[in-house]
Protein backbone atom coordinates (compact mmCIF):
# COMPACT_ATOMS: atom_id res chain seq x y z
CA UNK A 1 0.00 0.00 0.00
CA UNK A 2 2.79 2.42 0.94
CA UNK A 3 4.50 1.86 -2.43
CA UNK A 4 1.24 2.57 -4.17
CA UNK A 5 0.64 5.79 -2.20
CA UNK A 6 4.15 7.07 -2.95
CA UNK A 7 3.84 6.21 -6.65
CA UNK A 8 0.46 7.91 -6.85
CA UNK A 9 1.72 11.03 -5.04
CA UNK A 10 4.65 11.23 -7.46
CA UNK A 11 2.28 11.00 -10.41
CA UNK A 12 0.10 13.75 -8.95
CA UNK A 13 3.13 16.02 -8.54
CA UNK A 14 4.20 15.30 -12.11
CA UNK A 15 0.74 16.11 -13.44
CA UNK A 16 0.75 19.37 -11.47
CA UNK A 17 4.15 20.39 -12.86
CA UNK A 18 3.15 19.55 -16.45
CA UNK A 19 -0.15 21.40 -16.15
CA UNK A 20 1.51 24.44 -14.58
CA UNK A 21 3.93 24.65 -17.51
CA UNK A 22 1.17 24.19 -20.09
CA UNK A 23 -1.00 26.80 -18.40
CA UNK A 24 1.87 29.27 -18.25
CA UNK A 25 2.90 28.84 -21.88
CA UNK A 26 -0.69 28.92 -23.11
CA UNK A 27 -1.82 31.95 -21.16
CA UNK A 28 1.32 33.98 -21.77
CA UNK A 29 0.96 33.45 -25.49
CA UNK A 30 -2.36 35.34 -25.41
CA UNK A 31 -2.57 38.81 -26.87
CA UNK A 32 -1.00 41.96 -25.50
CA UNK A 33 -2.50 43.10 -22.19
CA UNK A 34 -0.70 46.45 -22.39
CA UNK A 35 -2.82 47.46 -25.37
CA UNK A 36 -5.94 46.90 -23.29
CA UNK A 37 -4.71 48.45 -20.05
CA UNK A 38 -3.17 51.61 -21.45
CA UNK A 39 -5.51 54.45 -22.28
CA UNK A 40 -6.00 55.06 -26.03
CA UNK A 41 -4.06 58.33 -25.71
CA UNK A 42 -1.02 56.70 -24.12
CA UNK A 43 2.23 57.38 -25.94
CA UNK A 44 5.14 55.00 -26.52
CA UNK A 45 6.81 55.91 -23.23
CA UNK A 46 3.76 55.22 -21.10
CA UNK A 47 3.26 51.88 -22.86
CA UNK A 48 6.85 50.91 -22.11
CA UNK A 49 6.42 51.93 -18.49
CA UNK A 50 3.38 49.66 -18.16
CA UNK A 51 5.23 46.78 -19.85
CA UNK A 52 8.12 47.17 -17.40
CA UNK A 53 5.85 47.44 -14.38
CA UNK A 54 4.09 44.19 -15.33
CA UNK A 55 7.42 42.46 -15.97
CA UNK A 56 6.48 41.71 -19.57
CA UNK A 57 9.75 43.08 -21.03
CA UNK A 58 11.80 40.17 -19.67
CA UNK A 59 12.44 37.02 -21.72
CA UNK A 60 9.81 34.28 -21.43
CA UNK A 61 12.04 31.77 -19.61
CA UNK A 62 12.82 34.41 -16.98
CA UNK A 63 9.13 35.13 -16.53
CA UNK A 64 8.55 31.38 -16.26
CA UNK A 65 11.27 30.87 -13.63
CA UNK A 66 9.85 33.77 -11.63
CA UNK A 67 6.34 32.32 -12.00
CA UNK A 68 7.41 28.90 -10.68
CA UNK A 69 9.43 30.40 -7.83
CA UNK A 70 6.58 32.67 -6.78
CA UNK A 71 3.94 29.98 -7.21
CA UNK A 72 5.88 27.71 -4.84
CA UNK A 73 5.67 30.55 -2.31
CA UNK A 74 1.93 30.89 -2.76
CA UNK A 75 2.19 34.02 -4.93
CA UNK A 76 0.46 33.72 -8.30
CA UNK A 77 1.07 37.31 -9.36
CA UNK A 78 -0.93 40.51 -9.15
CA UNK A 79 -4.00 41.14 -11.24
CA UNK A 80 -3.22 43.67 -14.04
CA UNK A 81 -6.71 45.12 -13.74
CA UNK A 82 -7.47 45.19 -10.00
CA UNK A 83 -3.84 45.55 -8.88
CA UNK A 84 -4.46 43.03 -6.12
CA UNK A 85 -2.83 39.62 -5.64
CA UNK A 86 -4.63 37.26 -8.04
CA UNK A 87 -4.95 34.55 -5.43
CA UNK A 88 -6.61 36.92 -2.94
CA UNK A 89 -9.00 38.04 -5.65
CA UNK A 90 -10.02 34.44 -6.30
CA UNK A 91 -10.15 33.38 -2.68
CA UNK A 92 -12.45 36.34 -1.96
CA UNK A 93 -14.89 35.05 -4.54
CA UNK A 94 -14.47 31.36 -3.82
CA UNK A 95 -17.10 31.23 -1.01
CA UNK A 96 -19.81 32.41 -3.41
CA UNK A 97 -18.98 29.65 -5.90
CA UNK A 98 -18.64 26.99 -3.20
CA UNK A 99 -21.99 28.00 -1.74
CA UNK A 100 -23.54 27.73 -5.19
CA UNK A 101 -21.96 24.35 -5.92
CA UNK A 102 -22.86 22.84 -2.54
CA UNK A 103 -26.46 24.06 -2.77
CA UNK A 104 -26.67 22.58 -6.26
CA UNK A 105 -25.21 19.31 -4.97
CA UNK A 106 -27.82 19.14 -2.20
CA UNK A 107 -30.64 19.87 -4.65
CA UNK A 108 -29.45 17.18 -7.04
CA UNK A 109 -29.29 14.62 -4.23
CA UNK A 110 -32.55 15.42 -2.47
CA UNK A 111 -34.57 15.79 -5.64
CA UNK A 112 -32.69 13.31 -7.84
CA UNK A 113 -32.70 10.28 -5.53
CA UNK A 114 -36.47 10.26 -4.82
CA UNK A 115 -37.23 10.77 -8.52
CA UNK A 116 -34.79 8.02 -9.54
CA UNK A 117 -36.23 5.72 -6.88
CA UNK A 118 -39.74 6.28 -8.22
CA UNK A 119 -38.64 5.71 -11.81
CA UNK A 120 -36.82 2.54 -10.74
CA UNK A 121 -39.76 1.13 -8.79
CA UNK A 122 -42.33 1.90 -11.48
CA UNK A 123 -40.34 1.89 -14.74
CA UNK A 124 -43.39 1.35 -16.94
CA UNK A 125 -45.63 4.00 -15.35
CA UNK A 126 -46.32 7.37 -16.93
CA UNK A 127 -44.42 9.07 -14.09
CA UNK A 128 -41.41 6.80 -14.62
CA UNK A 129 -41.30 7.52 -18.33
CA UNK A 130 -41.70 11.29 -17.78
CA UNK A 131 -38.86 11.33 -15.24
CA UNK A 132 -36.57 9.49 -17.66
CA UNK A 133 -37.51 11.80 -20.53
CA UNK A 134 -36.81 14.79 -18.27
CA UNK A 135 -33.43 13.40 -17.29
CA UNK A 136 -32.47 12.89 -20.95
CA UNK A 137 -33.30 16.56 -21.57
CA UNK A 138 -31.34 17.55 -18.47
CA UNK A 139 -28.37 15.65 -19.88
CA UNK A 140 -28.42 16.82 -23.45
CA UNK A 141 -29.63 20.43 -23.44
CA UNK A 142 -26.93 23.07 -23.00
CA UNK A 143 -26.70 24.32 -19.44
CA UNK A 144 -26.87 28.00 -20.36
CA UNK A 145 -30.08 27.44 -22.30
CA UNK A 146 -31.70 25.78 -19.29
CA UNK A 147 -30.58 28.80 -17.24
CA UNK A 148 -32.12 31.24 -19.72
CA UNK A 149 -35.40 29.37 -19.62
CA UNK A 150 -35.36 29.46 -15.79
CA UNK A 151 -34.84 33.23 -15.94
CA UNK A 152 -37.56 33.66 -18.55
CA UNK A 153 -40.04 31.56 -16.59
CA UNK A 154 -39.36 32.47 -12.95
CA UNK A 155 -37.99 36.02 -13.21
CA UNK A 156 -39.52 37.60 -16.29
CA UNK A 157 -42.89 35.90 -16.56
CA UNK A 158 -43.71 34.91 -12.97
CA UNK A 159 -41.52 37.44 -11.17
CA UNK A 160 -40.88 35.03 -8.27
CA UNK A 161 -37.08 35.24 -8.10
CA UNK A 162 -34.50 37.88 -9.07
CA UNK A 163 -32.66 37.22 -12.34
CA UNK A 164 -29.11 37.91 -11.19
CA UNK A 165 -26.64 38.96 -8.51
CA UNK A 166 -26.06 37.48 -5.09
CA UNK A 167 -28.36 39.57 -2.88
CA UNK A 168 -27.77 40.45 0.77
CA UNK A 169 -25.11 38.41 2.50
CA UNK A 170 -24.46 37.79 6.17
CA UNK A 171 -21.13 36.80 7.69
CA UNK A 172 -20.73 33.26 8.98
CA UNK A 173 -17.35 32.83 10.73
CA UNK A 174 -16.15 35.89 8.80
CA UNK A 175 -17.20 34.49 5.41
CA UNK A 176 -20.11 36.23 3.67
CA UNK A 177 -22.84 33.73 2.81
CA UNK A 178 -26.22 34.38 1.30
CA UNK A 179 -28.28 31.41 2.49
CA UNK A 180 -28.85 33.05 5.89
CA UNK A 181 -30.88 35.96 4.54
CA UNK A 182 -34.20 35.68 2.74
CA UNK A 183 -33.03 37.97 -0.06
CA UNK A 184 -29.82 35.99 -0.51
CA UNK A 185 -31.74 32.73 -0.58
CA UNK A 186 -34.05 34.08 -3.30
CA UNK A 187 -30.97 35.00 -5.34
CA UNK A 188 -29.40 31.58 -4.76
CA UNK A 189 -32.32 29.37 -5.79
CA UNK A 190 -32.30 29.81 -9.58
CA UNK A 191 -28.53 29.57 -10.19
CA UNK A 192 -28.29 26.57 -7.86
CA UNK A 193 -31.18 24.87 -9.64
CA UNK A 194 -29.54 25.59 -12.99
CA UNK A 195 -26.25 24.10 -11.88
CA UNK A 196 -28.05 21.15 -10.28
CA UNK A 197 -30.08 20.07 -13.34
CA UNK A 198 -27.26 18.19 -15.09
CA UNK A 199 -26.16 16.33 -11.96
CA UNK A 200 -29.76 15.66 -11.06
CA UNK A 201 -30.21 13.88 -14.39
CA UNK A 202 -27.10 11.82 -13.57
CA UNK A 203 -28.36 10.97 -10.06
CA UNK A 204 -31.77 9.97 -11.44
CA UNK A 205 -30.16 7.55 -13.91
CA UNK A 206 -27.81 6.02 -11.36
CA UNK A 207 -30.56 5.64 -8.76
CA UNK A 208 -32.99 4.15 -11.26
CA UNK A 209 -30.50 1.63 -12.59
CA UNK A 210 -29.43 0.71 -9.04
CA UNK A 211 -33.02 0.35 -7.83
CA UNK A 212 -34.01 -1.93 -10.70
CA UNK A 213 -31.02 -4.14 -10.01
CA UNK A 214 -31.45 -4.27 -6.23
CA UNK A 215 -35.19 -4.99 -6.40
CA UNK A 216 -34.41 -8.37 -8.02
CA UNK A 217 -32.06 -9.48 -5.24
CA UNK A 218 -32.91 -12.25 -2.82
CA UNK A 219 -32.52 -10.09 0.27
CA UNK A 220 -35.35 -7.85 -0.90
CA UNK A 221 -37.59 -10.88 -1.37
CA UNK A 222 -36.51 -12.09 2.06
CA UNK A 223 -37.29 -8.72 3.66
CA UNK A 224 -40.72 -8.81 2.06
CA UNK A 225 -41.26 -12.38 3.24
CA UNK A 226 -40.42 -11.24 6.75
CA UNK A 227 -43.45 -8.99 6.45
CA UNK A 228 -41.59 -5.68 6.54
CA UNK A 229 -43.54 -2.67 5.32
CA UNK A 230 -42.87 -1.35 1.81
CA UNK A 231 -41.51 1.90 3.31
CA UNK A 232 -38.95 0.01 5.37
CA UNK A 233 -37.90 -2.24 2.51
CA UNK A 234 -37.33 0.72 0.21
CA UNK A 235 -36.09 3.19 2.81
CA UNK A 236 -33.56 0.84 4.39
CA UNK A 237 -32.82 -2.17 2.24
CA UNK A 238 -32.95 -0.59 -1.20
CA UNK A 239 -31.68 2.89 -0.43
CA UNK A 240 -28.62 1.70 1.51
CA UNK A 241 -27.47 -0.47 -1.35
CA UNK A 242 -27.87 2.04 -4.15
CA UNK A 243 -26.20 4.91 -2.34
CA UNK A 244 -22.61 3.70 -2.82
CA UNK A 245 -22.29 4.35 -6.57
CA UNK A 246 -24.29 7.58 -6.27
CA UNK A 247 -22.01 8.97 -3.58
CA UNK A 248 -18.86 7.93 -5.49
CA UNK A 249 -19.96 9.63 -8.69
CA UNK A 250 -21.13 12.78 -6.91
CA UNK A 251 -17.79 13.10 -5.13
CA UNK A 252 -16.06 12.92 -8.50
CA UNK A 253 -18.48 15.40 -10.00
CA UNK A 254 -18.00 18.11 -7.37
CA UNK A 255 -14.97 19.38 -9.26
CA UNK A 256 -16.78 19.52 -12.58
CA UNK A 257 -19.59 21.38 -10.84
CA UNK A 258 -17.19 24.17 -9.94
CA UNK A 259 -16.01 24.23 -13.56
CA UNK A 260 -19.59 24.32 -14.85
CA UNK A 261 -20.29 27.22 -12.50
CA UNK A 262 -18.52 29.35 -15.13
CA UNK A 263 -21.61 29.05 -17.33
CA UNK A 264 -24.21 29.43 -14.58
CA UNK A 265 -22.46 32.42 -13.04
CA UNK A 266 -22.33 34.14 -16.43
CA UNK A 267 -26.04 33.58 -17.04
CA UNK A 268 -27.05 34.85 -13.58
CA UNK A 269 -24.33 37.53 -13.20
CA UNK A 270 -23.37 35.71 -9.99
CA UNK A 271 -20.16 37.12 -8.47
CA UNK A 272 -18.15 33.88 -8.14
CA UNK A 273 -14.82 32.70 -9.54
CA UNK A 274 -16.38 31.54 -12.82
CA UNK A 275 -17.62 35.02 -13.66
CA UNK A 276 -14.20 36.36 -12.64
CA UNK A 277 -12.55 33.95 -15.10
CA UNK A 278 -14.75 35.01 -18.01
CA UNK A 279 -14.22 38.70 -17.19
CA UNK A 280 -10.46 38.14 -16.92
CA UNK A 281 -10.32 36.35 -20.29
CA UNK A 282 -12.11 39.33 -21.83
CA UNK A 283 -9.62 41.76 -20.26
CA UNK A 284 -6.53 39.56 -20.81
CA UNK A 285 -5.84 39.67 -17.08
CA UNK A 286 -3.24 36.87 -17.26
CA UNK A 287 -2.35 36.42 -13.58
CA UNK A 288 -6.00 35.91 -12.64
CA UNK A 289 -6.53 33.37 -15.46
CA UNK A 290 -3.38 31.51 -14.41
CA UNK A 291 -4.37 31.59 -10.73
CA UNK A 292 -7.86 30.28 -11.52
CA UNK A 293 -6.49 27.48 -13.66
CA UNK A 294 -3.84 26.50 -11.13
CA UNK A 295 -6.44 26.39 -8.38
CA UNK A 296 -8.69 24.21 -10.55
CA UNK A 297 -5.83 21.89 -11.53
CA UNK A 298 -4.83 21.46 -7.90
CA UNK A 299 -8.43 20.75 -6.98
CA UNK A 300 -8.86 18.13 -9.71
CA UNK A 301 -5.56 16.45 -8.94
CA UNK A 302 -6.49 16.23 -5.26
CA UNK A 303 -9.98 14.87 -6.00
CA UNK A 304 -8.61 12.22 -8.36
CA UNK A 305 -5.86 11.34 -5.92
CA UNK A 306 -8.27 10.89 -3.02
CA UNK A 307 -10.65 8.79 -5.13
CA UNK A 308 -7.80 6.54 -6.33
CA UNK A 309 -6.47 6.10 -2.81
CA UNK A 310 -9.92 5.20 -1.51
CA UNK A 311 -10.38 2.69 -4.34
CA UNK A 312 -7.00 1.18 -3.57
CA UNK A 313 -7.93 0.89 0.10
CA UNK A 314 -11.20 -0.83 -0.75
CA UNK A 315 -10.09 -2.97 -3.68
CA UNK A 316 -6.66 -4.62 -3.44
CA UNK A 317 -6.66 -5.47 -7.17
CA UNK A 318 -6.14 -1.78 -8.01
CA UNK A 319 -2.88 -1.39 -6.12
CA UNK A 320 -1.55 -4.79 -7.19
CA UNK A 321 -2.08 -3.98 -10.86
CA UNK A 322 -0.46 -0.59 -10.38
CA UNK A 323 2.56 -2.09 -8.64
CA UNK A 324 3.07 -4.50 -11.55
CA UNK A 325 2.93 -1.81 -14.24
Amino acid at each position, binding site marked *: MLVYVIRRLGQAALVLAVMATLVFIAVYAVGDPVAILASPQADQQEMEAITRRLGLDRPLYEQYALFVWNALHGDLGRSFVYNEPALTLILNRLPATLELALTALLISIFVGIPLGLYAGLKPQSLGGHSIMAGSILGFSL*PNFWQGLMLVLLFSVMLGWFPAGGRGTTRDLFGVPVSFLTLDGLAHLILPALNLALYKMALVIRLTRAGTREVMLQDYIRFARAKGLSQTRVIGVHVLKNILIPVVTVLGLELGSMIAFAVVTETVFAYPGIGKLLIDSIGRLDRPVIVAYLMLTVVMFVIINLVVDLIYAAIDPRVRLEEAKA
Partner: protein
Amino acid sequence: MSEQAATPAPTAAARPAEKAESLLLRHVAAFFESPLAVVGLAGLVLLVAAALAAPLIAPQDPYDLAQLDIMDGTLPPGAESLAGYTYWLGTDEQGRDMLSAILYGLRISLGVGAVSVVIACAVGASIGVLAAYAGGRIDSLVMRVVDLQLSFPAILVALVLLAVFGRGVDKVIIALVIVQWAYYARTVRGSALVERRRDYIEAARCLALPKSRIVFRHLLPNCLPPLIVVATVQVAHAIALESTLSFLGVGVPVTEPSLGMLIANGYDYLLSGKYWISTFPGIALVAAIVAINLVGDRLRDVLNPRLSR
Protein backbone atom coordinates in the same frame (compact mmCIF):
# COMPACT_ATOMS: atom_id res chain seq x y z
CA MET B 1 -32.41 -6.05 -54.98
CA SER B 2 -31.64 -5.04 -58.55
CA GLU B 3 -28.25 -6.67 -58.20
CA GLN B 4 -29.90 -9.96 -57.39
CA ALA B 5 -32.09 -9.74 -60.47
CA ALA B 6 -29.06 -9.04 -62.65
CA THR B 7 -27.18 -12.10 -61.40
CA PRO B 8 -29.66 -14.89 -60.99
CA ALA B 9 -26.97 -17.42 -60.07
CA PRO B 10 -24.70 -15.71 -57.54
CA THR B 11 -21.07 -16.70 -57.83
CA ALA B 12 -18.93 -17.46 -54.83
CA ALA B 13 -17.35 -14.01 -54.99
CA ALA B 14 -20.69 -12.23 -54.97
CA ARG B 15 -22.04 -13.99 -51.92
CA PRO B 16 -20.18 -12.07 -49.16
CA ALA B 17 -21.25 -8.75 -50.67
CA GLU B 18 -24.85 -9.88 -50.68
CA LYS B 19 -24.59 -10.92 -47.06
CA ALA B 20 -23.16 -7.54 -46.07
CA GLU B 21 -25.99 -5.83 -47.85
CA SER B 22 -28.62 -7.85 -46.07
CA LEU B 23 -26.95 -7.07 -42.74
CA LEU B 24 -27.08 -3.36 -43.56
CA LEU B 25 -30.72 -3.72 -44.63
CA ARG B 26 -31.49 -5.48 -41.39
CA HIS B 27 -29.91 -2.63 -39.41
CA VAL B 28 -31.88 -0.07 -41.39
CA ALA B 29 -35.11 -2.00 -40.84
CA ALA B 30 -34.37 -2.28 -37.11
CA PHE B 31 -33.69 1.44 -36.95
CA PHE B 32 -37.09 2.28 -38.42
CA GLU B 33 -38.89 0.08 -35.89
CA SER B 34 -38.67 2.84 -33.29
CA PRO B 35 -41.12 5.69 -34.01
CA LEU B 36 -39.13 8.10 -31.82
CA ALA B 37 -35.97 7.45 -33.83
CA VAL B 38 -37.85 8.05 -37.08
CA VAL B 39 -39.16 11.36 -35.72
CA GLY B 40 -35.60 12.27 -34.71
CA LEU B 41 -34.21 11.34 -38.12
CA ALA B 42 -36.96 13.28 -39.92
CA GLY B 43 -36.30 16.33 -37.74
CA LEU B 44 -32.58 16.06 -38.33
CA VAL B 45 -32.97 15.75 -42.11
CA LEU B 46 -35.30 18.77 -42.08
CA LEU B 47 -32.86 20.88 -40.03
CA VAL B 48 -29.86 19.91 -42.17
CA ALA B 49 -31.83 20.66 -45.34
CA ALA B 50 -32.92 24.03 -43.93
CA ALA B 51 -29.34 24.84 -42.98
CA LEU B 52 -27.96 23.86 -46.39
CA ALA B 53 -30.67 25.75 -48.25
CA ALA B 54 -30.50 28.83 -45.99
CA PRO B 55 -29.40 31.27 -48.74
CA LEU B 56 -32.27 30.06 -50.94
CA ILE B 57 -35.15 29.96 -48.45
CA ALA B 58 -34.28 32.72 -45.95
CA PRO B 59 -36.49 35.79 -46.45
CA GLN B 60 -33.46 38.11 -46.23
CA ASP B 61 -29.68 37.89 -46.06
CA PRO B 62 -29.23 38.78 -42.38
CA TYR B 63 -25.63 39.91 -42.89
CA ASP B 64 -26.23 42.19 -45.84
CA LEU B 65 -26.53 45.51 -44.04
CA ALA B 66 -28.26 47.07 -47.03
CA GLN B 67 -31.24 44.80 -46.45
CA LEU B 68 -31.59 45.73 -42.78
CA ASP B 69 -33.68 48.65 -41.60
CA ILE B 70 -32.96 49.89 -38.07
CA MET B 71 -36.56 51.14 -37.91
CA ASP B 72 -37.62 47.48 -37.87
CA GLY B 73 -35.60 46.82 -34.68
CA THR B 74 -36.94 44.47 -31.95
CA LEU B 75 -40.31 43.88 -33.58
CA PRO B 76 -42.35 41.06 -32.02
CA PRO B 77 -43.10 37.86 -33.99
CA GLY B 78 -45.65 38.31 -36.75
CA ALA B 79 -45.04 42.06 -37.10
CA GLU B 80 -45.01 43.64 -40.55
CA SER B 81 -41.92 45.41 -41.81
CA LEU B 82 -41.88 48.89 -43.31
CA ALA B 83 -41.25 47.25 -46.66
CA GLY B 84 -44.41 45.22 -46.21
CA TYR B 85 -43.43 41.60 -45.48
CA THR B 86 -43.97 39.73 -42.25
CA TYR B 87 -41.30 38.90 -39.65
CA TRP B 88 -42.69 35.56 -38.48
CA LEU B 89 -40.19 35.24 -35.63
CA GLY B 90 -39.65 38.94 -34.94
CA THR B 91 -36.44 40.95 -35.37
CA ASP B 92 -33.38 41.74 -33.27
CA GLU B 93 -32.15 45.19 -32.28
CA GLN B 94 -30.71 45.89 -35.73
CA GLY B 95 -33.93 44.99 -37.50
CA ARG B 96 -32.62 41.59 -38.61
CA ASP B 97 -35.25 38.96 -39.41
CA MET B 98 -34.79 36.25 -36.74
CA LEU B 99 -35.98 33.44 -39.04
CA SER B 100 -33.20 34.25 -41.52
CA ALA B 101 -30.66 34.68 -38.74
CA ILE B 102 -31.61 31.28 -37.31
CA LEU B 103 -31.31 29.54 -40.70
CA TYR B 104 -27.82 31.01 -41.18
CA GLY B 105 -26.92 30.29 -37.56
CA LEU B 106 -27.98 26.68 -37.98
CA ARG B 107 -25.49 26.36 -40.84
CA ILE B 108 -22.63 27.42 -38.59
CA SER B 109 -23.73 25.41 -35.54
CA LEU B 110 -24.34 22.16 -37.44
CA GLY B 111 -21.27 22.72 -39.60
CA VAL B 112 -18.93 23.28 -36.67
CA GLY B 113 -20.39 20.27 -34.86
CA ALA B 114 -20.10 17.92 -37.83
CA VAL B 115 -16.64 19.02 -39.03
CA SER B 116 -15.12 18.92 -35.54
CA VAL B 117 -16.50 15.43 -34.94
CA VAL B 118 -15.23 14.10 -38.28
CA ILE B 119 -11.71 15.41 -37.67
CA ALA B 120 -11.65 14.38 -34.00
CA CYS B 121 -12.98 10.95 -34.98
CA ALA B 122 -10.28 10.43 -37.61
CA VAL B 123 -7.49 11.61 -35.30
CA GLY B 124 -8.79 9.79 -32.21
CA ALA B 125 -9.54 6.53 -34.03
CA SER B 126 -6.09 6.44 -35.65
CA ILE B 127 -4.34 7.05 -32.35
CA GLY B 128 -6.55 4.55 -30.53
CA VAL B 129 -6.11 1.73 -33.03
CA LEU B 130 -2.35 2.29 -33.29
CA ALA B 131 -2.03 2.27 -29.50
CA ALA B 132 -3.98 -0.97 -29.23
CA TYR B 133 -1.98 -2.63 -32.01
CA ALA B 134 1.39 -1.46 -30.67
CA GLY B 135 0.55 -2.30 -27.05
CA GLY B 136 3.12 -2.03 -24.25
CA ARG B 137 4.68 1.30 -23.42
CA ILE B 138 3.17 3.28 -26.30
CA ASP B 139 -0.28 2.04 -25.38
CA SER B 140 0.02 2.91 -21.70
CA LEU B 141 1.51 6.33 -22.49
CA VAL B 142 -1.35 7.20 -24.86
CA MET B 143 -3.94 6.00 -22.40
CA ARG B 144 -2.37 8.04 -19.59
CA VAL B 145 -2.71 11.16 -21.74
CA VAL B 146 -6.32 10.22 -22.51
CA ASP B 147 -7.09 9.66 -18.83
CA LEU B 148 -5.46 12.94 -17.89
CA GLN B 149 -7.42 14.88 -20.45
CA LEU B 150 -10.74 13.24 -19.65
CA SER B 151 -10.28 14.02 -15.96
CA PHE B 152 -10.77 17.72 -16.74
CA PRO B 153 -14.21 18.95 -17.85
CA ALA B 154 -14.39 19.56 -21.61
CA ILE B 155 -15.90 23.00 -21.15
CA LEU B 156 -12.93 24.18 -19.09
CA VAL B 157 -10.31 22.84 -21.52
CA ALA B 158 -12.12 24.38 -24.49
CA LEU B 159 -12.49 27.69 -22.67
CA VAL B 160 -8.75 27.89 -21.98
CA LEU B 161 -7.83 26.87 -25.54
CA LEU B 162 -10.09 29.54 -27.01
CA ALA B 163 -8.80 32.14 -24.58
CA VAL B 164 -5.39 31.35 -26.08
CA PHE B 165 -6.37 31.06 -29.76
CA GLY B 166 -8.86 33.92 -29.86
CA ARG B 167 -12.19 33.90 -31.68
CA GLY B 168 -12.92 32.26 -35.02
CA VAL B 169 -14.81 29.37 -36.57
CA ASP B 170 -11.58 27.51 -37.41
CA LYS B 171 -10.29 28.03 -33.88
CA VAL B 172 -13.50 26.71 -32.34
CA ILE B 173 -13.19 23.61 -34.52
CA ILE B 174 -9.56 23.08 -33.44
CA ALA B 175 -10.52 23.47 -29.78
CA LEU B 176 -13.41 21.01 -30.16
CA VAL B 177 -11.12 18.48 -31.87
CA ILE B 178 -8.56 18.73 -29.05
CA VAL B 179 -11.31 18.31 -26.47
CA GLN B 180 -12.95 15.34 -28.19
CA TRP B 181 -10.26 13.12 -29.71
CA ALA B 182 -9.68 11.29 -26.41
CA TYR B 183 -13.22 9.84 -26.39
CA TYR B 184 -12.67 8.20 -29.78
CA ALA B 185 -9.18 7.04 -28.93
CA ARG B 186 -10.51 5.29 -25.84
CA THR B 187 -13.52 3.79 -27.63
CA VAL B 188 -11.51 2.43 -30.57
CA ARG B 189 -8.72 1.12 -28.38
CA GLY B 190 -11.27 -0.80 -26.32
CA SER B 191 -12.69 -2.65 -29.30
CA ALA B 192 -9.30 -2.96 -31.06
CA LEU B 193 -7.86 -4.79 -28.03
CA VAL B 194 -10.55 -7.43 -28.49
CA GLU B 195 -10.36 -7.55 -32.29
CA ARG B 196 -6.61 -7.88 -32.57
CA ARG B 197 -6.70 -11.31 -30.90
CA ARG B 198 -9.09 -12.60 -33.58
CA ASP B 199 -8.03 -15.11 -36.21
CA TYR B 200 -8.36 -12.80 -39.20
CA ILE B 201 -5.65 -10.53 -37.81
CA GLU B 202 -3.46 -13.59 -37.30
CA ALA B 203 -4.22 -14.59 -40.90
CA ALA B 204 -3.32 -11.13 -42.18
CA ARG B 205 -0.02 -11.32 -40.28
CA CYS B 206 0.71 -14.70 -41.79
CA LEU B 207 0.25 -13.19 -45.24
CA ALA B 208 3.04 -10.77 -44.25
CA LEU B 209 0.93 -7.75 -45.04
CA PRO B 210 2.47 -4.43 -44.04
CA LYS B 211 1.57 -3.24 -40.53
CA SER B 212 -0.20 -0.11 -41.73
CA ARG B 213 -2.42 -2.23 -43.97
CA ILE B 214 -3.32 -4.59 -41.14
CA VAL B 215 -4.11 -1.72 -38.78
CA PHE B 216 -6.12 0.49 -41.11
CA ARG B 217 -7.70 -2.01 -43.52
CA HIS B 218 -8.32 -4.99 -41.25
CA LEU B 219 -8.39 -3.83 -37.64
CA LEU B 220 -9.98 -0.38 -37.89
CA PRO B 221 -13.06 -1.29 -39.99
CA ASN B 222 -13.99 -3.93 -37.43
CA CYS B 223 -13.86 -1.37 -34.62
CA LEU B 224 -16.26 1.02 -36.36
CA PRO B 225 -19.74 0.20 -34.94
CA PRO B 226 -19.12 1.52 -31.41
CA LEU B 227 -17.28 4.46 -32.94
CA ILE B 228 -20.29 5.40 -35.07
CA VAL B 229 -22.50 5.45 -31.98
CA VAL B 230 -20.09 7.61 -29.98
CA ALA B 231 -19.61 9.95 -32.94
CA THR B 232 -23.34 10.51 -33.45
CA VAL B 233 -23.93 11.43 -29.84
CA GLN B 234 -20.76 13.53 -29.83
CA VAL B 235 -22.10 15.71 -32.66
CA ALA B 236 -24.84 16.81 -30.27
CA HIS B 237 -22.25 17.38 -27.55
CA ALA B 238 -20.06 19.38 -29.90
CA ILE B 239 -22.97 21.58 -30.95
CA ALA B 240 -23.94 22.16 -27.31
CA LEU B 241 -20.35 22.93 -26.39
CA GLU B 242 -19.87 25.34 -29.28
CA SER B 243 -23.08 27.18 -28.41
CA THR B 244 -21.98 27.43 -24.78
CA LEU B 245 -18.58 28.83 -25.76
CA SER B 246 -20.18 31.32 -28.12
CA PHE B 247 -22.63 32.30 -25.40
CA LEU B 248 -19.70 32.96 -23.06
CA GLY B 249 -18.17 35.19 -25.73
CA VAL B 250 -15.10 33.10 -26.63
CA GLY B 251 -16.51 31.14 -29.57
CA VAL B 252 -17.39 32.22 -33.09
CA PRO B 253 -16.82 35.84 -34.16
CA VAL B 254 -19.64 38.40 -34.43
CA THR B 255 -19.53 38.22 -38.23
CA GLU B 256 -20.39 34.49 -38.29
CA PRO B 257 -22.94 34.08 -35.49
CA SER B 258 -23.96 30.55 -34.51
CA LEU B 259 -27.16 29.81 -32.63
CA GLY B 260 -25.33 30.19 -29.31
CA MET B 261 -24.25 33.70 -30.25
CA LEU B 262 -27.76 34.69 -31.36
CA ILE B 263 -29.00 33.53 -27.95
CA ALA B 264 -26.31 35.56 -26.18
CA ASN B 265 -27.21 38.66 -28.22
CA GLY B 266 -30.84 38.37 -27.19
CA TYR B 267 -30.11 37.76 -23.52
CA ASP B 268 -30.21 41.44 -22.52
CA TYR B 269 -33.58 41.80 -24.18
CA LEU B 270 -34.93 38.69 -22.47
CA LEU B 271 -35.00 40.51 -19.13
CA SER B 272 -37.15 43.28 -20.55
CA GLY B 273 -39.67 40.76 -21.85
CA LYS B 274 -38.50 40.64 -25.51
CA TYR B 275 -38.25 36.88 -25.37
CA TRP B 276 -38.13 36.07 -29.11
CA ILE B 277 -34.53 37.13 -29.83
CA SER B 278 -33.14 34.45 -27.49
CA THR B 279 -35.94 31.91 -27.42
CA PHE B 280 -36.33 31.00 -31.10
CA PRO B 281 -32.63 30.35 -31.78
CA GLY B 282 -32.71 28.34 -28.56
CA ILE B 283 -35.58 26.22 -29.80
CA ALA B 284 -33.69 25.53 -33.05
CA LEU B 285 -30.62 24.54 -31.03
CA VAL B 286 -32.62 22.28 -28.72
CA ALA B 287 -34.42 20.65 -31.68
CA ALA B 288 -31.10 19.86 -33.35
CA ILE B 289 -29.58 18.38 -30.18
CA VAL B 290 -32.66 16.30 -29.31
CA ALA B 291 -32.99 15.00 -32.88
CA ILE B 292 -29.34 13.89 -32.98
CA ASN B 293 -29.66 12.22 -29.59
CA LEU B 294 -32.77 10.29 -30.65
CA VAL B 295 -30.96 9.01 -33.75
CA GLY B 296 -27.81 8.22 -31.74
CA ASP B 297 -29.72 6.29 -29.06
CA ARG B 298 -31.42 4.14 -31.65
CA LEU B 299 -28.15 3.52 -33.50
CA ARG B 300 -26.64 2.30 -30.24
CA ASP B 301 -29.47 -0.18 -29.73
CA VAL B 302 -29.32 -1.38 -33.34
CA LEU B 303 -25.55 -1.72 -33.66
CA ASN B 304 -25.04 -3.28 -30.27
CA PRO B 305 -27.56 -6.05 -29.65
CA ARG B 306 -26.02 -6.77 -26.24
CA LEU B 307 -27.14 -3.36 -24.99
CA SER B 308 -30.77 -3.69 -26.05
CA ARG B 309 -33.08 -4.23 -23.12
